[in-house]
């Protein structure tokens, strides 16, 4: 699987490379911009007494740096303080570190590895967090992401997303692969391959299934695939087109766009298939349904007012009210899990950009200046938006923080598109 992917050329301001042992998936991440104030943090190399394991600190360092919220402090010459008694706080303070992570990794007799780490407030010389994990060696990387998540949460105040997973479509040599991967693009696995297009993958709220649209039957059909077994079912395969699946927050229903009765209308179906219940009755195109986190609203795109705009209606259907007003093309709504924001694609004179609407205030901010952005989706911690864009003639995935300050790009060989976050 990893062999299909080669290291993509990155023309970035900053190329972060991982230790060779962790770089098998051949992806690269580029950071564009950063927060106005970054927390200076030192992440010491993890001690590895008598073991040749990969150093998890490299992953922790990369994760935190990619977030744009941290400034990595140079740790050279300060040794490898694997345990608490080895920490000399004045040393780290002299390097202007506010926070310090130390740790160690060792291989147990049964072959598993133990990873221990501690996070310190260097100024107060106090421990903020400390854990030990015993895992199979294959899980060491996942544990490094978990450590980064804990550090992020302790210092920023909201959970990190480094241990999360994403789904996306890879178009490579004329074929389409639906892949799932860690949030940093590693451990990518194809869950479906087809010579025909695949679009709109969305994770079920329980994280066990993915719904997507496949053109393999020479028409768009909505499938739900069980991730563990690979088994799947065509849940919307009605006359005409079947598209735009969105999970209800309880995971029992899918909102879909069907053309069985009119060009494109929104329906509700059971996640296992069955008779669709029509929710919109317009003479217009209604598509791209997205549930509010509490399940009571469905946001969707409609051109009922003459141009595509975002509307919302009760998830039981009925009257819709318009949500976007600025411009003549606002599409692809995605609601933040905390319910505060809606991201969408806004077209202006410069092209199609990711924008965010703060629902309470009604304030809209355009977050990107790339001209061909598509498919925005909020991260589980509501702090960033994953989307697809074009850079240098290639399709790549990118994230932007909800304030627009921090951007990352994820590159593989082949075109990446249609991203979705695991819950």
């Amino acid at each position, binding site marked *: 699987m990893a062999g299909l992917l080669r290291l993509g050329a990155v023309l970035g301001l900053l190329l972060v490379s991982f230790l060779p042992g962790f770089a098998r998936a051949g992806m690269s991440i580029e950071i564009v911009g950063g927060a106005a104030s970054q927390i200076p943090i030192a992440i010491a190399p993890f001690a590895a007494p008598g073991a040749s394991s990969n150093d998890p600190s490299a992953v922790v360092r990369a994760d935190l740096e990619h977030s744009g919220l941290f400034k990595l402090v140079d740790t050279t010459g300060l040794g490898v303080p694997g345990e608490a008694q080895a920490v000399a706080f004045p040393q780290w303070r002299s390097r202007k570190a506010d926070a310090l992570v130390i740790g160690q990794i060792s291989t147990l007799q049964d072959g598993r590895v133990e990873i221990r780490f501690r996070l310190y407030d260097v100024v107060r010389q106090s421990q903020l967090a400390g854990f030990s994990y015993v895992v199979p060696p294959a899980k060491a990387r*996942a544990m490094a992401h978990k450590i980064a998540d804990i550090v992020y949460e302790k210092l920023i105040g909201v959970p990190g997303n480094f241990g999360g997973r994403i789904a996306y479509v890879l178009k490579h040599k004329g074929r389409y692969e639906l892949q799932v991967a860690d949030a940093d693009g590693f451990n990518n696995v194809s*869950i479906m391959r087809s010579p025909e297009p695949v679009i709109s993958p969305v994770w079920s709220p329980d994280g066990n299934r993915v719904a997507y649209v496949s053109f393999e039957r020479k028409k768009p059909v909505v499938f739900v695939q069980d991730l563990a077994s*690979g088994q799947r079912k065509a849940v919307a395969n009605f006359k005409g087109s079947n598209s735009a699946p969105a999970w209800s927050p309880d995971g029992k229903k899918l909102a879909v766009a069907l053309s069985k009765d009119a060009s494109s209308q929104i329906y509700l179906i059971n996640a296992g298939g069955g008779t669709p219940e029509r929710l919109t009755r317009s003479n217009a195109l209604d598509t791209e349904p997205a549930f509010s986190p509490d399940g009571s609203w469905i946001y969707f795109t409609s051109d009922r007012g003459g141009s595509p705009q975002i509307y919302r209606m009760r998830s039981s259907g009925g009257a819709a009210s318009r949500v976007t007003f600025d411009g003549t093309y606002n599409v692809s709504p995605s609601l933040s899990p905390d319910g505060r924001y809606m991201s969408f694609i806004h077209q202006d004179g410069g092209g199609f950009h990711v924008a965010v609407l703060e629902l309470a205030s009604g304030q809209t901010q355009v977050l990107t200046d790339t001209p061909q952005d598509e498919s925005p989706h909020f991260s589980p911690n509501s702090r960033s938006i994953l989307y697809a864009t074009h850079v240098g003639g290639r399709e790549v995935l990118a994230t932007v923080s909800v304030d627009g300050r921090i951007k990352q790009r994820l590159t593989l060989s082949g075109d990446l598109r249609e991203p979705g976050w695991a819950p």
Partner: protein
Amino acid sequence: MKHLSLVSLLIAGVMLSACGTTETKAPVVDRSVATETAKPAAPAGPQVETHGLAAGATDQSQPLEANGSGIEGVSAADAAKLKDPNSLLSKRIVYFDFDKSAIKPEARPLIEAHAQFLKEHGQAKVVLQGNTDERGSREYNMALGQRRADSVKQAMAVLGVKDDQIETISFGEEKPVADGHDEAAWQQNRRTEIHYKGE
């Protein structure tokens, strides 16, 4: 093939106290995925494979056999007209203006020819495939492509073609005929294609 567990497998989390001498066991969380084996699914189309993340879970579908029966209710001689370069029936593409689904006057003769053929061959069926250029949302383009297919269907219906002879679907922006990223390519991609079933 690497296998990825659904959730990071936290085998054991042990909290270390600040002094590092007392240790408290944290709850064990094991959310590893099921290991059931996939059963072969019904043929799903050409060369489509799915892969489960659990060990041994892989599902490969069989290619569908091509339908050799030809177009229903159409003689070989009549079917040949559909391919004859001198016949309007060999023309299968209706083009559209940007963000429009209205039929342009120059497309009328082509649509009329196919409508006449469908009326003369009441068993024949067509699939109208609507397409858009690459700009904007893939899913909104799916809806736009559908409207372009429906627009051709409506024009044929007005000419007397039966509803059950026509299925309309959309490929959105997913099936461009021209790969460029300029208006010259886009105008070739904004189209509805007429395909006879069994052809």
